[in-house]
């Protein structure tokens, strides 16, 4: 071993780290962190607040007594607690997050900055309308962009997320059918649909009728037509669909459902594949929600918030729920009550208190304006190009069930055929990817192929990143087929290099522990 002039060793010492058991439980930068509740009440303050006057209260005899049971920490302890937690998360800023159907793309920080302008972030939804004209202007502009991009004449902005948008769309359809004096009880949903589609339809009392897929991974148009009838309210089709394929018979689907007196609901979760290149309005769509947190890059934040505006065709436009903004000679007015709606409008109700996800509107608007009409078109093109590049580079070593039927759109679908006989499952393969430094792709969805792996790179990944990912995937596929060449249980035991190894989900569900409970019984809070 060589030494520097202070006698310190300067060369690398061989040896793995696996064998080291630390005294603290920490492993270098990987810090263990207990629950804040383990700290208990300490008399510490994380927020300094003035001393109350404690005069006689006016609570009408319902003053809280006893302990709530919240821990007390100082600010540095709180900050460290949450920073340590953050370090246990994978994120799109960490690396490629190819979660198909979920569209994890770069979240520009400009959007965060804009959303925090006091003029957007520090205004109240019920302050006088004349004091928030800039907010209405932003909402009106977002509406204009969404309508122009989709080629649809109306939009409901208030839905809080994609599934909420689906609900809004189906309610408008229900209202339009009722306005014709009809009752229709069935909704056709392809078997490849997101779970939210049948759940939404069922939530508002529709019977869900499943339409099979063809061997090409598309809606079976003949089967769909056979199911049509006077009781069919709508068909819900995701396009591009969850196999990452464009429904090439979409015009036939639209004609068929319209011919039967029903409406065409399009799940727009995958709109990012066609934005700027295809307008759903040109495909015969009557209603489509747009996940601002997918196509327009508002952050997912560990599961939300989302925003799910719904664009509507001429036929459904009158039913847009309150509230909505109208432009007038002396500024904008927000229509908040059904009885204030302009002539011709027949709002079906209200989806949420207030006006929708303003914080997501500002972020999406900043994103759209940054790209412009030309950049948004490039978004779709690069998203599709990246996915096809992955498909082209992996389909010889993995199995792509629709890989030979033509190009995919924004995501590439694989199944577990290539793992047959290897003892490695889709889940094992995904977990091994964690050790390689990637978030796994979507697994076991869509349900139409066995052991699905759905890879969505998005347009914000560079070619170098894709090449490295392809190398990792090819290497893992080769090793799975060769049978663990390194002599380890690389797949079955994965992941090894994450803050936790595989977690016991069965135990979690069998005896659910959904909150911290104190170790010893305490006086109950009142």
């Amino acid at each position, binding site marked *: 071993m060589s030494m520097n002039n202070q006698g310190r060793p300067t060369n690398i010492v061989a040896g793995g780290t696996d064998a080291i058991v630390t005294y603290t439980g920490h492993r270098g930068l990987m810090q263990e962190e207990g629950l804040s509740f383990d700290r208990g009440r300490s008399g510490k303050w994380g927020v300094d607040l003035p001393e109350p006057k404690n005069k006689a209260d006016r609570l009408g005899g319902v003053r809280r007594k006893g302990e709530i049971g919240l821990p007390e920490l100082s600010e540095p302890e709180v900050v460290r607690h949450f920073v340590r937690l953050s370090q246990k998360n994978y994120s799109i800023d960490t690396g490629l997050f190819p979660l198909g159907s979920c569209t994890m793309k770069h979240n520009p920080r400009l959007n965060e900055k804009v959303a925090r302008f006091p003029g957007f972030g520090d205004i109240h939804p019920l302050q006088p309308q004349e004091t928030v004209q800039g907010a209405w202007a932003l909402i009106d502009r977002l509406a204009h962009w969404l309508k*122009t991009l989709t080629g649809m004449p109306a939009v409901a902005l208030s839905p809080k997320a994609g*599934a909420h948008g689906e609900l809004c769309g189906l309610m408008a359809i229900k209202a339009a059918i009722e306005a014709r004096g009809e009752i229709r009880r069935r909704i056709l949903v392809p078997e490849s649909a997101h779970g939210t589609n049948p759940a939404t339809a069922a939530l508002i009392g529709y019977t869900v009728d499943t339409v099979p897929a063809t061997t090409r991974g598309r809606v079976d148009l003949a089967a769909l037509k056979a199911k049509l009838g006077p009781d069919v309210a709508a068909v819900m089709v995701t396009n591009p669909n969850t196999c990452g394929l464009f429904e090439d018979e979409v015009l036939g689907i639209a004609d068929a459902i319209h011919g039967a007196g029903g409406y065409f609901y399009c799940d727009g979760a995958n709109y990012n594949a066609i934005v700027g290149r295809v307008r759903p309005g040109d495909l015969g769509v009557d209603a489509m929600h747009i996940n601002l947190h997918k196509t327009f890059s508002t952050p997912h934040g560990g599961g939300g918030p989302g925003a799910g505006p719904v664009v509507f065709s001429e036929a459904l436009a009158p039913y847009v729920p309150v509230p909505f903004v109208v432009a007038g000679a002396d500024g904008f007015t927000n229509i908040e009550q059904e009885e204030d709606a302009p002539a011709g409008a027949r709002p079906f109700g209200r989806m949420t208190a207030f006006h929708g996800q303003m914080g997501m509107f*500002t972020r999406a608007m900043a994103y759209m304006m940054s790209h412009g009409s030309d950049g948004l078109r490039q978004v779709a093109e690069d998203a599709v190009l990246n996915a096809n590049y992955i498909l082209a580079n992996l389909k010889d070593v993995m199995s792509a069930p629709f890989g030979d039927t033509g190009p995919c759109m924004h995501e590439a679908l694989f199944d577990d055929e290539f793992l047959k006989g290897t003892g490695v499952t889709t889940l094992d393969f995904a977990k091994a990817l964690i050790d390689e430094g990637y978030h796994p792709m979507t697994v076991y969805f869509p349900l139409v192929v066995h052991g699905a792996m759905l890879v969505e790179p998005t347009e914000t990944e560079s070619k170098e990143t894709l090449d490295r990912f392809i190398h990792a995937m090819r290497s893992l596929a080769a090793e799975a087929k060769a049978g663990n060449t390194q002599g380890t249980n690389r797949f079955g035991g994965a992941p090894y290099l994450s803050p936790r190894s595989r977690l016991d989900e069965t135990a979690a569900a069998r005896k*659910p522990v959904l909150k911290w409970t104190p170790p010893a019984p305490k006086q109950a809070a009142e």
Partner: protein
Amino acid sequence: MRYLPLTPDERRSMLATIGARSIDDLFVDVPEAARLSAPVDLPRFMGEMQVERDLGRLAAKNMTASSVPFFVGAGAYKHHVPASVDHIIQRSEFLTSYTPYQPEIAQGTLQYLFEFQTQVAAITGMDVANASMYDGSTGTGEAVLMAMRVTKRNKAVVSGRLHPHYADVVHTVCGHAGAGMSIEIGGVHPSAPEDLSSRLDANTACVVVQNPDVFGNLADLRVLAEATHAAGALLIVVVTEAVSLGLVMSPGSMGADIVVAEGQSIGVGLQFGGPYVGLFATREKYMRQMPGRLCGRTVDGQGRPGFVLTLSTREQHIRREKATSNICTNSGLMCLAFTIHMTLLGEGGFKRLAQLNHEAACDLADALAELPGVEIPTRSYFNEFTLKLPKPAAGVVSALAKKGVLGGVPASRLYPGDASLENLLIVAATEVNTEECRASFVAALKEVLA
């Protein structure tokens, strides 16, 4: 374009690898008639500075809460949010992560959800809480549907003093949700006792009551809870001001079966109505009928504690049309803001914050009651109460705004067309209102009413 890493050369070489001549080859499945040959008619791309300037101009047209004496509430409240909250939620690993479907690399999200659930259960006095709904109003709609599932009945009795937007959401959801669901809404009066018990019958699934209600009245719900339970129905308690839970007896201790709250007051900020965070809690026996995600504790392969999403057989991605709700995306990042702020407050801070809010409201009420012609029908309240003015409140609020004071929400904005409510103004006071703010408000109102 700064967000797109591919170079023209790379695009060409990638197309060659794929075996496509041009990008158009990848869009061949799109019907020819629907292929756009050029960008749509919208502005071209902009640099960061241009976007910031442009949107900054729109933002500047709005009167911000921090810049004026501010007393607007009615479901969204102006509170101070500690600087560390917004700083931490912008950490990449929180901001740009996804639903924790791969728990081994999402323990950060899962652990804060577990802490969030614990906090929500504690402050509401309930057994279990979920990992959030979109907001309080949509959570209320889900609570009514849940009560109908649990009781297999289909009538909801709704207080007339439930925030009308919330009532509209319940009405919209249940009105579409299927055969036979009905909603009965109680009468609206700013202060008189409301008789909901007489509306209970053998088909009543739930009673929905807000506490404090939209006019600010605080009530003891124990008698109503008893009557509701005696009728075999569930009591749903809605709380739109979560800070009140620091000072007021928890809904759970008053007999609530489901508690829905708007969590916006803790950590989230006003944001013009969203994104907010819906709190949703219930009794353990109804746990499996809950909507939304749940995070549970478990162990990993080495026996170390960890967290996972659990009981997902209730959820749409597993159960599809048989799910308890269609909800998928929740309010993860807003949950985090709530959890951080609540952790900073702790038991002592949360209770003190609530006490300060109550005192701010009492002081404001005392000052406003001095004004000639002004009455305060609200007797018991937390940080919000109702003024009866000698003239219509909507005009008063506009006149106040011209003087640079945002002075509350006219009841007519929430209950349009009800002449008996025209002169009522709903006013909220919080810890952000200084004595000087209150004095400005009182002086401005005096001038407007003169």
